[in-house]
């Protein structure tokens, strides 16, 4: 019998394993890995000019890069040939049916964090309202993870929203456009702050200096195309390191279906995907870290519950293009990244919601990915993409997860998840932000805003929320699932609320906290 069985290898699984390293721990996961990438070194745009044909690398021999032409839209990051392992087979292994929620899940080692934006923001006391834990409960774990993976950024005007990081690496280099926005914001800072807008450097789990044996970031623009960039933290790095040092046992190729508590432990049933047979594993504790959707499915399946509707949270998104007219026709800055350039916080005086935005450049995707999204002829779109790209930044605005009781997830008898999530922007925040940016020379219009479908943020949470007095399908402050003795929920499923922030850093810290408690109970 294992001391603990951990299901999943994403952010929650990795830091649960990190907490329990050295104990008799088993990690069960499907665990797909990226293909060997031998020939994609250097800067994307230099490669595109120098190599006659990058079909294999950017489109793929199986035409993976054409995914969105003939299948349901997924993030551009998830469809390139060397990155498509992240979403391999997910729709077959965990089918989801929904008319308004475009869910994505990953069965890759490291989970969806193989393609994350690497934004690491601590939750504040306000963010944790509704949680049965306090910021002080998480802070030591934030610090520990920060040291482990390395975070670049600055303790600037956003520190009061993102929390002070004691050991930051130098911030990422800014593009001319991002640098210009930041300079103009600083000149008119008082005016911006009166409108509730603060702009600063992002906190990224991206190394700007070598750290723990990993190399620094190279500004090569390959985030959309090359997996396992050592400069960008991936939970698979931690899992592999622990497994290599025999601190944990890793079994990949297993899809966990359900669990059953019995005397002295938990029996976990998983399907061996290579043989098709069902195998059982025994642990004194079970830590569910399969991602919010995966964990919810396992819990409902274990209870044979095809009726209950669990709550679900997701960050609605708005995408606002910003144009600096003086940069029309400039050269594209090719030594850039597809990572966030700046972060923005918007707090409307008349609304309790605090919104967070990330400003991106436009050098990540291929032009063909976006050519047909604007209401112009193809040739005109190509011309606009060529001359406007250097003048364009994208503000991705995250709204907090909505606690609307009509949003739900449930398991159907055929094993598919049924999800409903309704949300519609009233465009008030978008219009105010557009007006504020216009005052510093950046133009946009509400008509140009795009609203990706719900589910696109990949920030899913809150299906088995932590409560002070947990009830059915809820978890206690220690992450233990109500009605069980040793089943813990360590991923986003146990979040009590979802502020407008990337939740990954808090998933990691909370998983570390929960698994440390499990370790203490074992000792």
């Amino acid at each position, binding site marked *: 019998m294992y001391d603990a069985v951990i299901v999943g290898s994403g952010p929650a699984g990795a830091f649960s394993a990190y907490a329990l390293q050295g104990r008799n721990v088993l990690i069960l996961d499907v665990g797909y890995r990226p293909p060997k990438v031998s020939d994609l070194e250097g800067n994307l745009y230099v490669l595109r*000019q120098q190599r006659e044909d990058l079909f294999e690398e950017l489109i793929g021999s199986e035409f993976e890069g054409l995914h969105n032409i*003939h299948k349901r839209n997924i993030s551009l990051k998830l469809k390139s040939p060397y990155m498509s392992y992240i979403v391999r087979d997910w729709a077959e292994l965990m089918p989801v049916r929904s008319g308004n929620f475009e869910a994505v899940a990953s069965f890759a080692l490291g989970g969806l964090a193989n393609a994350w934006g690497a934004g690491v923001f601590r939750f504040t006391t306000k963010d944790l309202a509704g949680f049965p834990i306090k910021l002080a409960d998480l802070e030591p774990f934030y610090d520990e993870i920060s040291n482990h993976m390395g975070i670049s950024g600055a303790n600037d005007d956003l520190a009061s929203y993102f929390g002070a990081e004691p050991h930051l690496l130098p911030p990422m280099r800014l593009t001319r456009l991002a640098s210009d926005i930041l300079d103009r914001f600083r000149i008119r800072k008082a005016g911006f702050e009166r409108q509730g807008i603060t702009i600063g450097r992002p906190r990224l789990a991206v190394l700007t200096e070598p750290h723990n044996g990993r190399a620094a970031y190279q500004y090569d623009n390959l985030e959309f195309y090359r997996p396992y960039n050592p400069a960008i933290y991936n939970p698979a790095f931690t899992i592999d390191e622990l497994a290599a040092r025999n601190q944990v046992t890793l079994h990949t190729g297993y899809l966990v279906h359900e669990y059953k508590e019995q005397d002295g432990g938990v029996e976990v049933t998983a399907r061996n995907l290579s043989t098709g047979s069902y195998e059982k594993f025994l642990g004194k504790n079970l830590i569910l870290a399969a991602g919010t959707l995966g964990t919810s499915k396992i819990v409902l399946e274990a209870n044979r519950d095809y009726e209950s509707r669990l709550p679900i949270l997701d960050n609605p998104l708005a995408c606002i293009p910003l144009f600096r007219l003086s940069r029309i026709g400039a*050269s594209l800055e090719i030594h850039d990244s597809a990572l966030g350039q700046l972060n923005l916080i918007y707090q409307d005086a008349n609304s309790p919601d605090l919104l967070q935005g990330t400003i991106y450049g436009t050098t990540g995707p291929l032009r063909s990915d976006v050519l047909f999204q604007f209401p*112009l002829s*193809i040739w005109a*779109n190509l011309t606009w993409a060529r001359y406007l*790209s250097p003048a364009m930044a994208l503000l991705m605005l995250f709204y907090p997860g909505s606690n609307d009781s009509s949003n739900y997830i449930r398991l159907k008898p055929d094993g598919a998840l049924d999800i409903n999530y309704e949300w519609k922007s009233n465009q008030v925040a978008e219009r105010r932000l557009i007006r504020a940016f216009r005052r510093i020379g950046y133009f946009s219009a509400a008509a140009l805003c795009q609203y990706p479908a719900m589910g696109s943020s990949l920030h899913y949470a809150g299906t088995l929320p932590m409560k002070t007095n947990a009830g059915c399908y809820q978890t206690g402050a220690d992450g233990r699932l109500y009605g069980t003795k040793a089943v813990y929920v360590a991923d986003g499923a146990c979040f009590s609320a979802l502020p407008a922030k990337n939740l990954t850093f808090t998933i990691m810290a909370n998983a570390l906290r929960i698994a440390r408690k499990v370790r203490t109970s074992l000792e």
Partner: protein
Amino acid sequence: MADDRTALESEARHFYALFFRRPLPGPVVERYVAANHLCFPALDPKAREMVATIVTRRLDAEAIELALRLRKGSRVLTGKIQILFYLVEVRSEYYGYFINQAPGWWSAVLRLLGAAVRTGWKCAKGLYLVWRYDFV
């Protein structure tokens, strides 16, 4: 299957000639055919007939595509042209079509204005062609 292949090759040549002035590379044609088999394995008869009409009558596919896209009509033509753009974009000789290599504000603004005018013209032409040939 041979007929299908010939039709797809003709499509590729027709669409390509609307946008690019250099000779169409052989690998792009091969990949266009294969990509269509994957993305559009079974076109409905109406869409098949529309594409065949555009190619055999040498109609302005850019104009028709714009009209259909704005009217939220069939996405087949958009998809086929998008496939072609993906296949050429990853080749170095087309880099300049996608990425600006001659910086200059005035020339860029003039081209953008020209592109906007072109859109107006293509939209009107496309709406007429869609009506004339009853494309949906």
